[in-house]
């Protein structure tokens, strides 16, 4: 924990005269009780009052010093999000689309690893980084909400997974200053690609291995094939898209995603295994950090509420003292 304005603690000596006054008050109370042949309050009464005052003043001073916790930047990873047309699949308008589900996985992962620097690469026919690597998770959330959608680039009808993997490897090679620390890519896709995927993926996988990048693939989809619901001018109509009288159905190609994960020494996860994914990513990031990376200043979290809570409890104790004495 750190304090932004540690100078605020210079106000703490104010406690000395306060405690002296309270001590004098204690003596006076004992003296008057003796004079009236009454029972003076127990020592604990004065001790609790003094302690309450000390904690209250110290806690509020800490609030004034602006306490925060800064997570060390714990390594970097990229999300590789599929924004091809198939990611609009869902059974009905009441359900989130595959892309909506992928966004939830991304949000949960970011919440689970607040110290990480991450970025988003969107892919369909093309693949482009749509954010820089950042620890500003609020910004990443904003991008997920507004800047990550099906049809981001012109050719959203295709899923060129091989191109996306190759682009990531090339970016790391060409821009080591930006992507040099990236060793893990979380791929979020239904894996819906056609043709001989092994042949098409072999080159990009080799490129990824050459630049030491592992793919942690998260399969987005349902066990059964999922239809594409029709969306016109932003409105979902619950009608399933058909081509030549046949419903367009999107399968979850876990086999392809597992192949990519295994070949890059990564791992495959289902949507329900986010906790496991977070655990693996965190473990691997820490492992990679300890090797040769310098930890940097990551995200900050305000801790004022902790000290405000302490001050409230202390004040509560102070105010309850007379009542406790009466009970006694």
């Amino acid at each position: 924990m750190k304090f932004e304005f540690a100078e605020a603690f210079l106000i703490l000596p104010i406690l000395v005269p306060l405690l002296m006054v309270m001590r004098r008050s204690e003596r006076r109370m004992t003296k008057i009780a003796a004079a009236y042949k009454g029972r003076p309050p127990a020592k604990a009464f004065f001790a609790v009052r003094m302690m309450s005052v000390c904690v209250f003043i110290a806690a509020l001073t800490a609030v004034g010093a602006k306490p925060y916790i800064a997570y060390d930047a714990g390594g970097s990873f990229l999300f590789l999000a599929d924004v091809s047309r198939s990611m609009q699949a869902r059974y009905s308008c009441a359900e989130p689309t595959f892309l909506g589900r992928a966004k939830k996985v991304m949000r949960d992962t970011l919440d689970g690893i607040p110290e990480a620097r991450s970025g988003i690469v969107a892919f369909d026919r093309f693949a482009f980084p749509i954010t820089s690597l950042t620890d500003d998770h609020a910004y990443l959330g904003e991008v997920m909400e507004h800047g990550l959608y099906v049809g981001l680039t012109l050719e959203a009808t295709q899923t060129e997974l091989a191109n996306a993997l190759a682009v990531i490897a090339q970016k790391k090679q060409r821009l080591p200053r930006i992507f040099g620390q990236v060793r893990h890519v979380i791929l979020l896709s239904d894996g819906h690609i056609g043709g001989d995927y092994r042949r098409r993926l072999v080159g990009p996988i080799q490129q990824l291995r050459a630049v030491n990048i592992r793919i942690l693939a998260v399969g987005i989809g349902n066990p059964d094939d999922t239809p594409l619901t029709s969306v016109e001018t932003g409105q979902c109509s619950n009608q399933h898209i058909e081509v030549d009288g046949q419903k367009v159905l999107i399968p979850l190609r876990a086999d392809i995603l597992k192949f990519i994960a295994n070949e890059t020494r990564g791992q495959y996860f289902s949507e329900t295994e986010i906790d496991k994914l977070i655990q693996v990513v965190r473990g691997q990031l820490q492992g990679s950090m300890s090797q040769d990376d310098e930890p940097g200043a990551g995200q900050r979290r305000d801790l004022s509420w902790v000290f405000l809570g302490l001050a409230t409890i202390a004040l509560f104790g102070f105010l309850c003292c007379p009542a406790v004495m009466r009970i006694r």
Partner: protein
Amino acid sequence: MSFAYDLSLSAAPNFLLVLPLLLVLIAELIANRSSATVAMTGLEYIRSRRSGTGTRNRLYYPALCAVIVLALGLLWAGPEIQSNSPVFSADVQTQQKELILAIDVSRSMSGPLVIPDKAARLAAYGKDTDSQEHRQTRYEVARETVYKFIDRFPDARIGLILFSTEPFLARWPTTETTQQFQEVLEENLNESSQLRQFSSLTNTDAALRLAREVFSQQSSLHGGAVIHISDAEDELENMGLAIRSLRMDGIRLYTIGVGISESIVDNLSQEFAGDPGFRIFRADSEEEMANAYQLVSELEESPRYSSEEKAFVADLRWILALAVVVLSSVILWILETGLHRTRVAEPAGITAMRSRHEI
């Protein structure tokens, strides 16, 4: 520039957390009235024997404690001040100047900015292409200009749209611009690049519409500007419509036309002559491009656009917490000296009499 501010509470419901403390105070006030506890005020006061003061003093204790409790409640509620200029050095800038850079990546942008004259072309004829002087392409010059804009406005929120037949939102507006969007812009428009595959014709109208959508999705935003760099003109009518829609939303537009025809510059300049929020520049050389960049930057840096589009939030919790430290110290001092209350439990004999209902 006038200092405008607005006080607010970022977590007002948290104020309720001090409710139990207020209840304790009320209970204490009631108990003090009815209890047999002999509550003696300060000796000075006993000496004075002024009538009515005892009741008042009985109220002072909970009243002064209530002041501390309410001050604590205020701290829980997260007081903050929103202003158009920073109050403290640590203020958070919640609203920045917003710029969207819309760059044309159509095929024609891969051509040279400056077309060599006839003599130079003849001299180069038959020579190996490697030995020929490398001429910057329009895209490269546009990219350099974009880098300059990014460097010139380090505090701005900058977005990036690449457009050809369709626009592509390459970067949702961000303040993290230290990498100058190189993750995307490092690619050239050469044969093997993705940008080349993406590039085709020029659809300025769609790019400006996308820019407008990006602005409209940020409800708290006021104003903002689009810097549009392109080498081709869309249909004049379409462009006019797109410009008008942007201007209706209060968004400024600067078009830097790389090699665009003079007629379109004249037509658009005439059409929007009375509108200071639209400027069109024609750049046929690196020097003209630099001049256009300079003019746009100066316009955007003018107080008219630079101050109104910024907002800062000063967290008042920390400074109020220090004030509460001082305030509660003073109150405690008063309670322990001037309003000292001696609490003495009644002697055992009196308690016994009370239990026998003799008193």
